[in-house]
């Protein structure tokens, strides 16, 4: 047997990863590089015109107030949605770690089952819940006599934030669930034996142990919220736009691929920076949280 084949079959070195790496290079890295490159040339009617590299399109986008304001909206909507996801996810993950048997299975199914349907379907479900006078929420509130006039819920920041939070919740719960359920319980017992109450034990022992999972969840949920375009499109309405929505609009609707690519570059780069900051912040706090047995 050829030595390379033998190494592959025995799982040695880099070789077993080769198919996955090749797949990612061909179907992710190259398309992404092509997309980014489109922002630095001029494209008209589907073809590159001229042969010069230019920063003019990037300069023009960065000097546009519209783009900055849409980027700000993408950012704050993602931040609020990510923080809400953490607030909602932590109790679920903690409850999972404290239960066993059928309850544990039921919580896991409840967490994972939304991932079995597409985000589009889940966003449409929110349209039915929040939508107008005939929406489920307004119908219920009207029938209970809690409101006289239907609330305007769709086509607002809050509709987008609510939709994003729910849709991205599993990405926050799953890392927390893994860390909290695998934590070393002896540390909590030691804290209790040393006189700490339940609340103090939770905040000084359990939460610090879960810091790496918290930041993994924050990075994941922030990235998918910041770059999401389906939820703002459907729940934000036709006058609502974010940076990700603009990428779609410019590429598919206006057919200005250069502008679409420039905005995609800004979106991707800023997303990388924010995710890096979250991960770096997580590493710093994780050092503080490291509890050795």
């Amino acid at each position, binding site marked *: 047997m050829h030595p390379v084949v033998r190494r592959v079959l025995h799982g040695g070195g880099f070789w077993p990863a080769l198919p996955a790496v090749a797949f990612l290079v061909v179907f992710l890295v190259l398309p992404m590089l092509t997309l980014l490159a489109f922002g630095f040339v001029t494209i008209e*009617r589907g073809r590159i015109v001229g042969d010069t590299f230019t920063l003019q399109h990037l300069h023009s986008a960065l000097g546009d107030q519209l783009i900055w304001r849409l980027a700000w909206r993408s950012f704050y909507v993602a931040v609020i949605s990510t923080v809400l996801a953490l607030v909602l996810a932590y109790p679920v993950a903690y409850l999972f770690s404290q239960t066993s048997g059928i309850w544990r299975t039921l919580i896991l199914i409840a967490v994972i089952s939304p991932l079995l349907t597409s985000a589009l379907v889940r966003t449409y479900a929110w349209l039915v819940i929040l939508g107008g006078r005939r929406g489920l929420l307004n119908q219920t509130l009207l029938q209970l006599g809690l409101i006289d006039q239907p609330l305007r819920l769709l086509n607002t920041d809050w509709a987008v934030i609510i939709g994003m939070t729910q849709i991205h919740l599993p990405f926050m719960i799953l890392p927390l669930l893994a860390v909290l359920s695998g934590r070393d319980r002896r540390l909590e017992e030691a804290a209790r034996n040393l006189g700490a109450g339940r609340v103090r034990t939770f905040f000084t022992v359990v939460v610090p142990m879960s810091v790496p999972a918290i930041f993994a969840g924050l990075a994941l949920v922030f990235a998918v919220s910041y770059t999401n375009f389906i939820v703002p499109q459907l729940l934000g309405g*036709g006058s*609502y736009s974010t940076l990700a929505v603009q990428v779609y609009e410019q590429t598919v609707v206006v057919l200005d691929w250069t502008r679409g690519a420039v905005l995609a570059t800004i979106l991707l780069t800023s997303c990388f920076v924010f995710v890096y900051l979250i991960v770096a912040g997580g590493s710093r706090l994780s050092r503080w949280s490291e509890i050795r047995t």
Partner: protein
Amino acid sequence: MSLRLTRRSILAGAGATLAAPSILNAQAARELVIVSFAGQLQEPHQWLARRMEARHPGLRIRLVPSESQDIVAAIKAAQGFSPFDAMPNGEPPHLIAQRDGYIQKLDAAKVPNAANVVPELMAKSAGFGVPASYSLIGIAYNEKLLKTAPKSWADLWNPEYRGKVAIPRASSNLGLGVLVIAARIFGGSEDNLDPGWAKLQELKPQVGRSPTALLQMLEREEIAIAPIWNNDAAGAAAKGLPIRFVQPDPGPVAIISFMSAVTNTRQPDLVNEWMNDILSAEYQQFAANAPYFFGPTVRGVTVPDAAKAYTPSSPQEVAKLQTVDWGKIAPNRGKIVEQFDRVFAL
């Protein structure tokens, strides 16, 4: 006779078995891929496709429901190897498709029914494709939620309707038509859209991302009144919803839909036959009827009684139709869409 199974013979057999269906398909089946409308409005195309398939054994006509903008993006990305053979386009994308070379010129000799088309409509095709139908932009309203029915375009600004009005984004043909009509009735024109922008902003409307989204907002009672396509309003009314359509004064905006061959189609003869069938009296009558109400473009097709609320049938009604000089609007579509976001998305 003994049969020896070796690894090589098994692999060869498996390969042949796997390849056989695709080889047979390539030999026997021909496929025509045609862009169509979504939902119920696709039914006239389905009806026509089944008739054509029956005439050509082995032919499969695949109808792809989509917005024309998505299709143009796909054709553009395909760089001359379009996955589609024919597509319908409203007047603005029809002009852009001509300019950018996505659709090809009509060979009228191969589409004999083109001789029956109303000459004024045929002239608008500029030699590309055939005028398949026309639709109207008017006002739809929920009669349960409004005390007074609107009569004119200016009624959209009636204080009674404040907070209940929605408009479409300017990226669709519907949105462009609404912008132009708003400009016109308040002193502007295709060359001066500023009065239209100002009045639409004053309306403080909700905005539907697409004509379909706008219709859904009307159905969910998020809004009570909106400019909308006659065909969409008819479809909603046919479902039993309390939605009525008005052809507002000084007149609804008429937009022609052209069916064109996509450049470098692999099936030019079949596409010509498809376009010829689109112009047949049978198809035109079918599409003009309930619940589709596509305006007929060929002479001699009568507007059915059921369509009279949605399609002009008298010479007076036809005379009221508003047309837009799309040659001035379509090339600026990108800038108009951007302006829309500057006005409404901030």
